[in-house]
């Protein structure tokens, strides 16, 4: 029996309505084509709302030495030179215009004294570069795009999940999915599709990401035959909350350490002094006294080891916990309250400098950070890897299929600088929308194959056929998150990752037998069941890519290969589906920088 569905037809279909998706949709609509947007949540709820720090753009409002070349070379250095240099170039050049454009659409950034957009310092950026709105920049950005977008001529399908891309002889022809609220199926015909579904954080137990981050775009692209790139690079932020469980993974800003907060283990020891990489010895304080002076603005003092790079701090915390020197809930202590030994009225000082952190811990943990240390631990934060795209057009290796934002790979290489994700969304969201519209104008519609639709619908309905006797989707999700955290997390080892692959294969079999009770209308169990194949696919891709890269670089740390290997610096790792449905993992040469970009990199080293 054939399944019933509603049908819509667009020139450009955008999947995802965070910063990248909305920016793409606005641009495509401005190109005069018919645009549809599909999102899993209500409009304006996407993960972009969580971004705090700011959007990086060389506006040079605060320091006039800044320009696109400095931003470009900062991004390349941060990414350990595995970045797609064309994307890093376009990003640095175009980010300022994208930020100014937001202001023209109603965004209200914090101001400099002379009334321009204010910019703040952030890790890895040479000059103050992050345009911001207090600590809620992401909300400002998404609301601006949303409020502008609803008048820009796009149709939004809220609370819908795409389960499959529809293909016509190798090119994309549309998407098939269902309405989460009502449960019915929908066919979206489209001449071009933009994937902007964000990241993959929900594959891990401890994450700062929202539930939507189940790697949908990564997995849809993979199944459609597109290549993924850099999947081994998952960024772990060193300081997330670990307790209470309700907020495990929630971000604790780097600003706490900037204000003098220190990391201690259960023995009360400042363990960061024990392991300072040679590369940073010159720049790091050799006494607690000097570190304290740095945080208080002494330009002659060197930074305390708590402010070393994110990947290193995260690994040190992890080591303390594994060695049994962790806090009761599996983290370590981040202590800002101690500064009362140094300055008068410390409690007022902390509340003034870190208002949102004070409230976050007070409200959610019942803990007064001016009196007690916080318990923190690393949290899965960002996916550098994603769909391999052309640097200019954002088209994947599949004709008509585009990707932007966290779903695409290339800009950040092996490690992302804070602030570069919000600018990424704007710059490459716009480009994806523009080139998707162009593709639609030039190529017309592909044919939609009813066989593909019926197969997708049948597979989506299987959990109801299995019924309550089947596997519990939540159990499978939790098990996956547990072992991905444990075995493919911050510190990676060959045999542990091999074990993870075996466990993923086991879960895939069980996921095929997931059972759901009751009907299709707003059924969270069914929604979770539909997320599982995507989470399993990205988990396997991460693991296989991490296994192949036998070195430590950026966000990837291999305990069995703890050093950087110049040879591996020449390659990205691509993941694609083979003819038999098997996952292929292959090396691809890093794109060669043209001489003028090479020169900039050398000059700024």
């Amino acid at each position, binding site marked *: 029996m054939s399944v019933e569905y509603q049908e819509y037809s667009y020139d450009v279909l955008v999947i995802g309505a965070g910063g990248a998706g909305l920016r793409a949709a606005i641009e495509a609509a401005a190109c005069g084509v018919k645009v549809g947007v599909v999102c899993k949540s209500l409009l304006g709820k996407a993960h972009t709302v*969580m971004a705090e720090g700011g959007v990086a753009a060389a506006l040079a409002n605060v320091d006039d030495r800044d320009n696109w070349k400095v931003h470009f070379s900062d991004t390349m250095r941060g990414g350990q030179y595995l970045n797609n240099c064309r994307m890093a170039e376009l990003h640095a050049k175009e980010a300022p215009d994208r930020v100014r454009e937001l202001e023209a659409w109603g965004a209200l950034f914090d101001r400099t004294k002379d009334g321009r957009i204010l910019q703040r310092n952030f890790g890895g950026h040479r000059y103050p570069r992050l345009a911001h709105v207090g600590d809620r920049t992401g909300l400002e950005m998404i609301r601006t795009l949303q409020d502008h977008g609803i008048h820009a001529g796009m149709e939004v399908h809220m609370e819908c999940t795409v389960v499959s891309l529809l293909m016509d002889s190798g090119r994309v022809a549309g998407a098939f999915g269902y309405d989460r*609220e009502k449960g019915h199926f929908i066919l979206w015909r489209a001449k071009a599709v933009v994937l902007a579904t964000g990241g993959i954080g929900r594959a891990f137990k401890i994450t700062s990401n929202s539930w939507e981050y189940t790697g949908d775009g990564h997995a849809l692209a993979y199944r459609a035959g597109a290549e993924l790139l850099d999947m081994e690079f998952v960024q772990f932020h060193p300081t997330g909350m670990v307790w209470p*469980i309700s907020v495990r993974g929630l971000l604790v800003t780097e600003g706490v350490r900037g204000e003098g907060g220190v990391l201690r283990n259960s023995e009360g020891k400042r363990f960061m002094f024990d392991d300072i990489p040679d590369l940073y010895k010159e720049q790091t304080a050799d006494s607690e006294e000097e570190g304290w002076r740095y945080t208080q603005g002494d330009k002659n003092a060197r930074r305390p080891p708590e402010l070393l790079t994110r990947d290193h701090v995260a690994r040190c915390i992890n080591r303390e916990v594994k060695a049994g020197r962790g806090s009761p809930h599996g983290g370590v202590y981040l202590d800002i309250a101690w500064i009362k030994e140094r300055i008068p009225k410390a409690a007022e000082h902390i509340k003034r400098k870190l208002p949102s952190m004070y409230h976050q811990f007070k409200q959610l943990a019942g803990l007064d950070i001016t009196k007690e240390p916080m318990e923190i631990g690393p949290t899965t934060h960002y996916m550098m890897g994603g769909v391999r795209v052309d640097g200019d057009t954002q088209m994947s290796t599949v004709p008509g299929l585009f990707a932007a934002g966290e779903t695409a790979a290339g800009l950040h290489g092996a490690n992302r600088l804070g602030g570069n994700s919000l600018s990424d969304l704007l710059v490459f969201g716009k480009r994806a929308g523009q080139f998707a519209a162009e593709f639609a104008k030039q190529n017309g519609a592909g044919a939609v194959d009813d066989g593909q639709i019926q197969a997708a619908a049948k597979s989506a309905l299987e959990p109801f056929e299995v019924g309550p006797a089947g596997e519990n989707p939540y159990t499978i999700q939790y098990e996956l998150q547990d072992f991905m955290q444990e075995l493919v997390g911050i510190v990676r080892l060959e045999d542990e990752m091999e074990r993870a692959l075996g466990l993923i294969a086991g879960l895939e079999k069980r996921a095929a037998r997931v059972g759901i009770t009751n009907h299709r209308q707003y059924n969270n*169990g069914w929604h979770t069941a539909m997320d599982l194949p995507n989470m399993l696919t990205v988990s396997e891709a991460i693991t296989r890519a991490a296994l192949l890269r036998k070195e430590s670089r950026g966000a990837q740390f291999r305990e069995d290969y703890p050093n950087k290997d110049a040879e591996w610096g020449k390659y990205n790792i691509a993941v694609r589906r083979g003819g038999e449905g098997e996952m292929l993992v292959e090396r691809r040469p890093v794109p060669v920088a043209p001489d003028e970009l090479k020169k900039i990199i050398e000059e700024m080293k």
Partner: protein
Amino acid sequence: MATQAMFRIWRGDANGGGFSDYTVPIDDGMVVLDAVHRIQAQQAPDLAVRWNCKAGKCGSCSAEINGMPKLMCMTRLSDLNLEMPVILEPMHAFPPIRDLVTDVSWNFRVKKTIKKFRPRTPDAPDGTWRMQQADVDRVQEFRKCIECFLCQDVCHVLREHHKHEEFIGPRFLVYVAALEMHPLDTEDRVKDLKDKYNIGYCNITTCCRQVCPEFITITENAIIPLKERVVDQFFDPLKKLLHIL
């Protein structure tokens, strides 16, 4: 702290429903949304709940907890009386879809009817503007809104009198205030406030302000100044007198 708690959750859809009881083990520091997730995972996999960031930033998990409109992700169990069942209901001002999920699409339709931002000509030749932080502060308060719609849920005009077709509710009065008080905006929405959005229906009981999880001073900072603009423009007795003379 108790080791388990009972949750009395409204389950049903547009055709009606009733309460079901679930007892779950609880841990220190849990919020209501954690308990709901635990019930989903262990007892009622199809229990419908809308949530997203679980950090009080997206405004998806709005519900009524023991009769109070709140975000489930920001309500700690330790702040509730667990001697009694915790009563969870969907928001009352919107049609139920299923269980704790309501149809809030009306809000998205309303927003589209409000005249969009229209900036003045740029101040500088490079197409940029100059604004002072002090002028931006006032509007930034309104732009903290996470669109959880708890203020809409508690507003008498919507909740008791169902004036959804005539009144836009506190959320969108805040939205209009953010546009009207935006330093760059040149559009005029005051006539619409009087005629289309019926701002006069609001009798400033401050219920909306009291439930705002972002602590926006909705009544005093947004609605009252807008009411004053309407009065200034349309009900100024001096102007009226001059008009008659």
